[in-house]
């Protein structure tokens, strides 16, 4: 069979107006249905004709899944809330800035305007073999093309590999783990709420998906408890380009300090393993210690213990060590989202007088 990409296949487009209706459609169509949020991940798959669902359930018309609400215990973010809205929301900026910062560094302004928080945490991996349609383990085959002596794996995993060495690409996921967020899932059997880190699935459990959603399931909201509101946060994303890039790695932490001593902490990284990694060993080791360079160094070294580099990604070990160190000692101030440069860019417009 000859191959062609970049032509979206025909499918039945269903556009529910409510979460209940969406739920019903998903239940009705089961494995034939594809759930689409902002479409950034979905359209790639569809246009490449690698995924050809019979039915596409487009959630863009479900208003009840959009928006940020303050609750008695923090905030609840609808799964269809855009990343831009999350990044700009005053309560997020004030109390949960680690999340605002993380989503502010996702991809590009255009993508953040269209992409949603639910989509960002539920997106598929960007392993270039898998996305290119190669019949790898994750695609139902019996080989990992990235994990061969000459496989190209610069952006792949140093932890958690199990046949597949792809990494989770989300920027928001580690921030949500650091905030101890809860993911609200609506399913045929009713609603359930899971901890952020339990939303994600490694290849050892199921190699074909990155999260626990089953056919018929719908992620409807993400709740952030007030537990970590106003804590000392750290987020850093390292990428090749200054905009429109997945992370080579990112780190997020939330720390409660008392007189310079770490009272409690949650820390997570992504693009390191097939799922975002909460670093519990590090959390346990630094609790009660001063938030300084020495603790940071110890934390960094502890974090990378057991890392297994591939041919082209050994740099991820010092990178993770240093990012975890920074997340503890905060020596490197966090980045600013590139939107901050927009005003600078305006200066580049040639003054009218120059066109005389």
């Amino acid at each position, binding site marked *: 069979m*000859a191959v062609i990409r970049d032509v979206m296949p025909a499918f039945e487009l269903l556009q529910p107006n409510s979460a209940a209706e969406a739920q019903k459609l998903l239940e009705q169509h089961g494995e034939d249905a594809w759930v689409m949020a902002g479409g950034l991940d979905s359209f790639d798959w569809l246009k490449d004709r690698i995924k050809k669902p019979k039915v596409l359930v487009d959630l863009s018309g479900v208003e009840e899944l959009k928006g940020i609400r303050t609750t008695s215990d923090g905030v609840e973010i609808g799964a269809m809330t855009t990343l831009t809205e999350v990044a700009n929301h005053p309560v997020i900026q004030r109390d949960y800035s680690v999340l605002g910062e993380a989503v502010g560094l996702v991809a590009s302004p255009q993508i953040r305007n269209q992409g949603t928080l639910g989509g960002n945490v539920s997106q598929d991996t960007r392993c*270039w073999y898998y996305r290119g349609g190669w019949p790898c383990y994750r695609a139902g085959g019996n080989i990992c093309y990235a994990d061969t002596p000459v496989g190209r794996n610069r952006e792949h995993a140093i932890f958690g590999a199990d046949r597949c060495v792809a990494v989770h690409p989300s920027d928001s996921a580690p921030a949500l783990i650091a905030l101890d967020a809860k993911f609200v899932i609506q399913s045929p059997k009713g609603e359930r709420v899971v901890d952020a880190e339990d939303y994600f699935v490694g290849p050892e459990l199921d190699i074909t998906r990155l999260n626990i959603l089953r056919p018929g399931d719908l992620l409807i909201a993400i709740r952030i408890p007030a537990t970590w509101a106003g804590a000392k946060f750290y987020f850093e994303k390292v990428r*090749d*380009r200054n905009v429109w*890039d997945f992370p080579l790695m990112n780190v997020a932490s939330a720390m409660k300090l008392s007189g310079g001593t770490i009272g409690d902490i949650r820390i997570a990284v992504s693009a390191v393993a097939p799922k975002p990694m909460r670093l519990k060993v590090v959390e346990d080791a630094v609790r009660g210690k001063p938030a300084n360079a020495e603790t940071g160094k110890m934390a960094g070294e502890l974090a990378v213990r057991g890392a297994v580099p591939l041919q082209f990604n050994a*740099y991820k070990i010092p990178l993770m060590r240093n990012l975890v160190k920074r997340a503890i000692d905060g020596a*490197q101030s966090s980045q600013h989202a590139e939107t901050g440069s927009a005003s*600078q860019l305006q200066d*580049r417009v040639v003054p009218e007088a120059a066109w005389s």
Partner: protein
Amino acid sequence: MAEQESKKPANETPLPFGSGYKLIGRNYATPDMIAKVTGTSRYAEDFRAEGMLFCRLALSQMPHGRIKSIDASKALAMPGVKAVFTANDIPEQADFLDDNGRTIKASKWGERALTNEPLYEGEPILAVAAVDELTCAEAIEKIKVDMEPLPFVIDPLDSLRPGGPNPRADGNVWERPKPPAPSAPVLTELKWTKEDFAEYDQGRLPMGEAPDTWKYGDLDAGFKNAALVLDESFLTPDVSHQCLEPRTAMAYWQNGKLYLHTGTQSTFQTVPAIARWMNMDPDKIVFISEYTGGGFGSKITGGVTMIIPALLSRKLNAPVMMRISREEEHFIGRARPSVLGRMKVGFAKDGRITALDMFTVTNAGSYDASGDGGSAARIVSLLYQPPAMRWRGVTVMTNTLPRSAQSAPGGMQGIAIMEPVLSKAARALGLDQVALRSVNCPEGKAEYGAPNASGKRAYSTSCFMRLALERGAEQFKWQERIAQPKRAGTKVRGVGVSLSCYVGGTIGFDGLLVITPEGRVRFHSGIGNLGTESVIDVHRAGAEVLGVPWEICDVVWGDTSRIMPFTCVSGGSQTTHAMTRAAYAVATEARQKLKEVASKALGGKPEEYEVADGRVFPKGGGAGLTFSQVAQKAIALGGIYDGHDAPTDVNKRTKSAVAALAGQGLVVAAKDKHPRDGDTYSFVASFAEVEVDVETGKYDLTDFLAYGDVGTVLHPAALGGQMLGRSTLGIAHAIGQKWVMDPEYGFTLAKRFYQNKPPTILDVPVDMQWAALNIPDPETPVGARGVGEPPVGGGCAAVLNALSDALGDEIFERCPVNADTILTSLEAGRPMQHPFMGSI
């Protein structure tokens, strides 16, 4: 002559832009500007025609294979499917005549629009036409292609190893036959010995037999007398052109004529390419390309696939649109060849180069020999003026994407390979980086390359590189910057400088204008509208010579039915130089014709008249003629005045153009015959500052300046666009634009923008700067030279040099340089990415 002339530049004083001119050197709104800015400009994909069909391509899923059979029966049975084309439906390429009337034989290794033996993954093997694209796609998926896999190779060194695979049955290396044999390269087989490869594991480029070589000077003496000898290997990346407009094409036929729309760099010169690929009469082709979304050398005369909709349209008797997707554009959109380079360079204590021994291995991809290795050597020879130099080069065919020229082909690679050696030498000798480049940089009529048969070496028309370097260093505050502390916390700052140059012009083309009965001056432009604005800008020089306000001038372009003169291809940064000369020639001739018509109408001799302000009148005053009156008189006179006769010395296609305009007014054509002593090059001094975070390996380019010696500045805004845009293209090679390929399967992994990572606007400094000397080139009447390509190499190398200034010499031996390169090498204390492993 070279010695004598080299003293001249020091006395030159640059002038403010536009000095002494009314139009040249001044900004203006180009006639295409509003359409481009508001999005109303129409590119090939924007056209629709009654009954238009669509076609889509199926690409090879093997890096090398032979099609045994294609079963399209199920596809053809689908409703809406109109045709399935394979290589068997594509005409054989014809021999053709070049601009000089020489017959060029069609190459047996030449690329065709579709193939039965794909030489790279992604090569088009068939095309389906249908009522819409979805039907095309569904039909393609119903076609059974039985293909036999053949041996393939993607790494040129693998192919050169003893017993290494060949990319096709008849060889792996391009060799240029020795004169007097025909100059087209031929494919031969070359394998190096095991002994040749002994240095590979030490990270030094093996140097086996090289088919191409030249040298001059006493190399041995140069190395013997050197205070420092460095021997460095370096790899430059394969980089795809990634034009924003893919090579979409739309075609239809009317009354036996082919009408073809696609983006091109060279409107006039694309017609013969279509004729050659279609094997048809060029007079039966109307080519439309008013706007082109980038070319950078990949669309010099369009692309061979543009004939697919033309052929389908002829067969189906309906217009056919072939849209090219981003992924398809990656495969068929061309790329710059990677070059593996090794430089052995001797330096005197003052930094002066004493000898240079250069070796290159060029990955030429699957079709056509690349000239990038030889070009790299010529540019290095010109830019660094080694008194003794040898170049040896191997150009290897591989089963990777077809290459083509990309902005500063070879020059970019040569500069990127050479500049880090200079930086290392300056550190070793304790010399300032600018000072070391100053003692080596070319000046005046600077010689370069190998001596010709009579022992003479070619030289530049003029060069004020040293002045540009000095001015640039001053503007960049080089001395202040190098005095500042480098390290602040985890951030390390570095500054870099690079010399840069490339070809800046050709000669001998034609200009064509009409002074109309309405009193307007209409310039006919055969230049492509590829984004540089030369399509319009060069005619400002014509208007300047004619002494008319720009407001009464019109430029027609972008459609060959609007009539065009013999025009250069817009490649090799030649257009501004070549076509300002043609504009100068035709405007000068127009002045003469105006006087002749006036003398015939009003009496006296032509030389007793003068031309100014849209009139021709007797010297010293008196009644004259307006341009409008001259045009009417010219029509009455006929013959040479209104285009019924053409000048004898213009190109035959210009003569046809003149005939087509006959009777429209005063029709003037002229050939550029202005003498030129030397070869035209433009020069740029590039400066960069980087800030590296040594804990993450991430770095930012914090400042950049390109200072040009590009002749007279014709259009400052357009020049600035080129200086900064093309610098950014070079910067891309340093900071991350790349390929990723799996060598086991010969497949491309990075095919989309987010994977190939061309730089974004946020990856370059917000206040990136440019400047230009504005010293006229003495060998061209307008003084202007081309500028598209000269800044590219400097963009890349200035960043590389800034990185090594920040981090030392033990970090990279290849580019791009990214966080992974920096972190692993910092950890290990030596370069950790093998210099010869590309596309990771």
